[in-house]
């Protein structure tokens, strides 16, 4: 149900006291920062359509509608990146997990923090322009940190989705609330952490809640009014599917199909509480007028006994018509998932070679399994999958009462971290986690919006964890290069026309690598986990790279509150 309301009661911290709602938030952070106008021109749809060519702005969470995270400026390049230095540091005073993708419009940067704060910052100096502190409702339900991954700007509005499951449009110049819409009931397990994708006057938004027995969705709201335009339930009323016994790579998943069929006859289709969250941005194919996104895990995560069938469209790539929300195609990676190895990292639209070597429009997704999957954009069919980027062992061992060891661990592989691509090299760059875990099943009935795991996945304390950055040729599926990191990696990556990729680590290191061979060319230690996707932009004739350093809740990396921008002399 969507309750729709327009709330013009602006809550912008125009320099007055802000009541802290959480210990990680500072009371009255803006005492000495009076609000100033963010002087931007309205962002047009044409500008958004051409975001992949802009060497000044950074307009979408993953760079552009195709979500390539390939930034076309090359002032910062392999030859001079060794001279990169800090331009400014902005401290938000919200010291919690920081996953924002900075958005830059006309020299104004918009970043968000945990607990759904938004800051407008002068992108040249790092000075605060305004701060929106969302008045959070008392009930929030989320599993993996009070994260927020950013905003998008269209026209004169900034769009934000909040932890208490509201969609908010702000005045981009002042931060005042223009309208607010309730998306879903947080008491039932719904929350928002993703940045909206705004296209053709529609605000596209999914939902978290796969650990709470929600029924997932992707929706389009009217960008001007906040009214619902269409809704797509990620779980259809017939969620049974084809009783697939093998995953996308052809491995047997050890399903007991007869037992599932018996259970289906007994309890019926479990679609109402089957999960299927969408909490990463859809890619938009402007030419075909279609969107592509991935759907997360079924509820409960580890207990398949309560949800017979393939659990469509969990763990799937899904494509919809942008205007109507009608489904165009889908591809399920893991049917009846009982490991939470779902599909999370946002898909990317690039041209790829099909099996015959012909170049066609493709869509690629990096899985928690550690594979990069390459699809035909037309029908979602799988063309190939890459070599595994992380160790895989005992796949697909079923969870047991005692706990069964299997690799990858439930965070991946590639978690939510967006990948980057360099179409000129046909390379996809992904950051990975290696966390040996045991999978344990313990059945319990639906708990009315409470955490519903159906067991537990636990890291094995005696086994070493690590991470890596991996470049994969998506036309061959072969790994081109890989850089090992001492800790699991989560946050995202950026590629640039300067022949570089930028990525951060949980220990605070932020580094630039040669995008062709993985050689490290520069690094900086930020003092807190760099677990956010970097962005780049140009202002005053100088290119910058910017990233959040605030650590991560899910993997428990050192918290901080900094947005750090780098440039050359």
């Amino acid at each position, binding site marked *: 149900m969507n309750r729709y309301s327009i709330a013009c009661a602006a809550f912008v911290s125009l320099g007055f006291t802000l009541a802290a709602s959480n210990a990680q938030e500072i009371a009255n952070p803006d005492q000495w920062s009076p609000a100033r106008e963010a002087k931007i021109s309205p962002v047009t749809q044409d500008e958004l359509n051409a975001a992949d060519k802009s060497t000044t702005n950074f307009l979408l969470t993953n760079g552009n509608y195709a979500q390539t995270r390939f930034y076309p400026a090359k002032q910062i390049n392999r030859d001079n990146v060794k001279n990169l230095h800090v331009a400014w540091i902005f401290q938000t005073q919200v010291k919690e997990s920081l996953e924002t993708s900075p958005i830059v419009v006309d020299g104004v940067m918009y970043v968000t923090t945990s607990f759904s704060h938004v800051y407008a910052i002068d992108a040249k100096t790092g000075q605060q322009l305004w701060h929106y502190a969302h008045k959070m409702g008392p*009930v929030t339900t*989320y*599993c*993996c940190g009070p994260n927020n991954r950013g905003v998008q700007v269209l026209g004169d509005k900034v769009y934000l989705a909040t932890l208490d499951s509201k969609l908010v449009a702000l005045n981009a110049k002042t931060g005042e609330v223009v309208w607010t819409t309730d998306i879903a009931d947080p008491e039932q397990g719904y929350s928002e952490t993703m940045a909206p994708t705004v296209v053709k006057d529609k605000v596209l938004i999914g939902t978290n809640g796969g650990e709470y027995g929600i029924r997932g969705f992707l929706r389009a709201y009217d960008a001007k009014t906040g009214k619902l335009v269409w809704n797509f339930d990620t779980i259809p009323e017939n969620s049974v599917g084809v009783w697939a016994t093998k995953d996308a790579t052809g491995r047997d998943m050890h399903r007991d199909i007869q037992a599932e069929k018996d259970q289906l006859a007994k309890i019926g289709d479990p679609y109402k509480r089957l999960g299927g969250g969408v909490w990463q941005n859809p890619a938009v194919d402007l030419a075909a007028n279609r969107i592509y996104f991935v759907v997360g895990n079924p509820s409960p995560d580890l207990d398949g006994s309560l949800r017979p069938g393939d659990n469509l469209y969990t763990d799937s790539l899904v494509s919809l018509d942008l205007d109507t929300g009608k489904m165009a195609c889908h591809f399920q990676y893991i049917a009846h998932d009982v490991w939470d190895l779902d599909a999370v990292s946002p898909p990317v639209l690039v041209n790829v070679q099909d099996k015959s070597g012909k170049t066609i429009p493709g869509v690629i997704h990096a899985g928690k399994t550690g594979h990069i999957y390459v699809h035909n954009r037309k029908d979602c069919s799988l063309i190939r999958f890459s070599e595994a980027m992380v160790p895989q062992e005992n796949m697909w061992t079923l969870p047991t009462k005692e706990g069964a060891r299997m690799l990858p661990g439930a965070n991946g592989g590639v978690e939510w971290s967006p990948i980057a691509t360099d179409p000129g090299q046909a390379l996809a760059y992904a950051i990975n986690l290696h966390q040996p875990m045991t999978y344990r099943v313990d059945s319990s009935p639906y*708990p009315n919006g409470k*955490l519903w*795991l159906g067991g*537990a996945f636990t890291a094995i304390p005696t086994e070493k964890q690590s991470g890596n950055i991996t470049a994969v040729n998506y036309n061959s599926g072969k790994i081109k290069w890989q850089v090992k990191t001492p800790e699991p990696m989560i946050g995202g990556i950026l590629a640039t026309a300067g022949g570089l990729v930028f990525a951060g680590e949980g220990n605070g290191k932020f580094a630039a690598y040669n995008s062709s061979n993985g050689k490290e060319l520069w690094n900086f230690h930020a003092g807190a986990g760099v677990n956010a996707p970097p962005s780049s932009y140009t202002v005053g004739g100088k290119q910058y790279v910017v990233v959040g350093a605030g650590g991560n809740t899910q993997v428990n990396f050192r918290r901080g509150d900094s947005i750090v921008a780098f440039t050359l002399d």
Partner: protein
Amino acid sequence: MHECHVTIAKAGPVAAPLLFSLTGMKSMVGNWMGMISRGIILGALLSAAPALAQGVAEKVKVCAGCHGQDGKPIDKAIPIIWGQQAGYIYIQLRDFKRGDRKNEIMQPIVASFEKNDMLAIAEYFAQKPWPNLGQPRSAKDVAQRALSAEHSVGCTGCHLEQFQGDGTVPRLAGQSRDYLAKTIADFRTRARGNNPGMTDLMRATPPDDLAALAEYLAGL
């Protein structure tokens, strides 16, 4: 990927459920008997917070009898609710009313509460300062054991880095050790049945580690 919740309840006409609970408590745990005999609940009833809106003020009077007039519970097995997360308090009150969480004292008290009452009571206690029970910091070996369990299960994914909680997830830092230990035990046996996710996580953790965790959290 992990999480948990808890809660309390709210009040309608508080006096009636309170009296009911007082008279009905004779058969309950010894601690409660002692408490009643000392007249603590009655004392709490007579000293309500005057600044509060009348309705809520009336309803929260009863709470001090067990949870403490100064926020320090009168028994170690009773949780601190002063300064607790409002969303958590609300959900617990709701669950007592629904019967999803069982407690012979709390369930009659919340029986007549409506949602708005529960939200108001939750907010009232959330605004109170968290009391310091003066529990000792855990020894180094205990802390290491606790943190090892935390890393394995990922407690901070929901309770956050400083175990302060947020929204419907409770603060654990500085909570009564006995209450924490009892709650963990109750999750494991499903005696505390209103959060199966927590049951899963507690069952996946060795009991010795959980004991260390309770001691560690209490000392924060």
